[in-house]
């Protein structure tokens, strides 16, 4: 009888385990970018990035509304939205791809990972494979990455007069904390 009871518990426990959602969500994640030139350093950051991660097939997607990037200078922010990224037409920047490594998502640790997929900004897609770091702790995940984006690749034109102020290659950094996704919040 005792063994039967134990087995019942085991079955229930196992069943719950099997049904656990493989989807994880990060909200209010950080995205920032840096443009360094001898004339001027420009930095902007957003705390409004969203990311979805599917641990059963390693799919990962990011989306950040362009308008949420905050600059130190308000006029610069206006020019970024109005003249360069045209956020009325292209309101978001996104990445959709896959984490290449096989990861035991149940094991705590720090993992060096790479992701391959399509990065989109200013309405232009560009294939990327980028390095990142994954931290697994107590069933929660943190992913950080830093990568470079070439302004020209995305048809973002910089007027000649501003060429010395804006870098051709912009460094992008992301930082996202994931928790299990619940459909009805």
């Amino acid at each position, binding site marked *: 009888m005792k063994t039967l009871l134990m087995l019942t518990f085991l079955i229930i426990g*196992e069943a719950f385990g099997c049904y656990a959602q493989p989807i994880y969500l990060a909200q209010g994640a950080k995205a920032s970018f840096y443009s360094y030139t001898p004339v001027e350093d420009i930095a902007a950051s957003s705390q409004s990035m969203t990311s979805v991660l599917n641990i059963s097939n390693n799919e*990962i997607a990011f989306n950040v*509304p362009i308008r949420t990037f905050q600059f130190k200078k308000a006029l610069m922010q*206006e020019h970024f939205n109005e003249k360069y990224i045209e956020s009325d*037409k292209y309101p978001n920047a996104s990445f959709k791809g896959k984490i290449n490594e096989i990861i035991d998502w149940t094991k705590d640790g720090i993992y060096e990972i790479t992701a391959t997929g399509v990065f989109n900004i200013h309405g232009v897609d560009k294939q990327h494979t980028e390095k990142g770091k994954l931290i697994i702790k107590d069933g929660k995940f943190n992913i950080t990455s830093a990568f470079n984006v070439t302004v020209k690749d995305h048809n973002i034109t910089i007027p000649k007069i501003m060429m010395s102020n804006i870098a051709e290659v912009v460094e992008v950094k992301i930082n996202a904390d994931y928790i299990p996704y619940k459909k009805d919040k």
Partner: protein
Amino acid sequence: MKKIYSLIMLLLLCTSTYAQNEKDSSSYDITSLLNDEVPSKQKVTATFKTTRIINMQSNETVHKRTLDFRVAHRFGAVGDKSGGNAHNFYGFDNSTDIRIAFEYGISDALTIGFSRSKREENLEGLLKYRLLQQTTDNKIPFSITLFGSLAYTPKNDAAGLFKKADDSNPALKQQLRRITYVAQAIIARKFSSKLSMELVPAMVHRNFVENPLDDNTVFALGVAGRFKFTRSMAFVADYVYNFSDLRKIDNNNGFYNPLGAGIEIETGGHVFSIMWTNAAGIIEREFITNTTDSWTKGGFRFSFNISRNFRL
């Protein structure tokens, strides 16, 4: 026997649930899931490029801790019926108004400003407050900004215009008669990255009016638009309709509604507006209530506004 039976059951159950799980996970569309979660509501910015269209206020305020230094000119009328000719280079030699202003953003929503104009020697203090901002999800379909100003004319009163025989406190009364107030609500919408428009119900109250037929308080409705045709150039136009009886065009009292049209060029921290308008004065109390030139009589003039932003 029972034990073995249970174990088999357990194994069966778990394999079946694993199988189910695999099927479910591949059917997740993470892109649509992501799109559901991305915040869609953002504030619409840069409805207009600067705080003025031509004559009228736009809904824009000066950015926080930024000083907007503004210089505006209205030259003489172009047409010969309104005084323009080859000898004054069709109005270029006669400036009807020059305004120099400092406008400062205390916050992104609140602007204070001070200006001095040539016309009537007007000294003006102004306040502008962004009440409502349009959002991208259209839950708030338009932006509303409130504008208020007070203008004082220190001009020489040799004719005794501001004096009245029966004044009980003549010194104070004479000063008060030099003051004019303006209140406006600017209702604007950015229809696309190219097109923005606004409606502006306005009130001008003058403590003293020369013409006994004139009302102290005059109501008007302004309409303005901006159409961007390159990433730094736009067509701009504005028009103000006066509800005052004295200023109805059919009444032929020599008053006209101000109409302006021109081009706006933005270069970094500068905004240049180059335009033609029949309004001779620059501030509200002048162009709304004192426009006496008519486009049809050649009474339009070359004008410009320059705005330079300094971050303090």
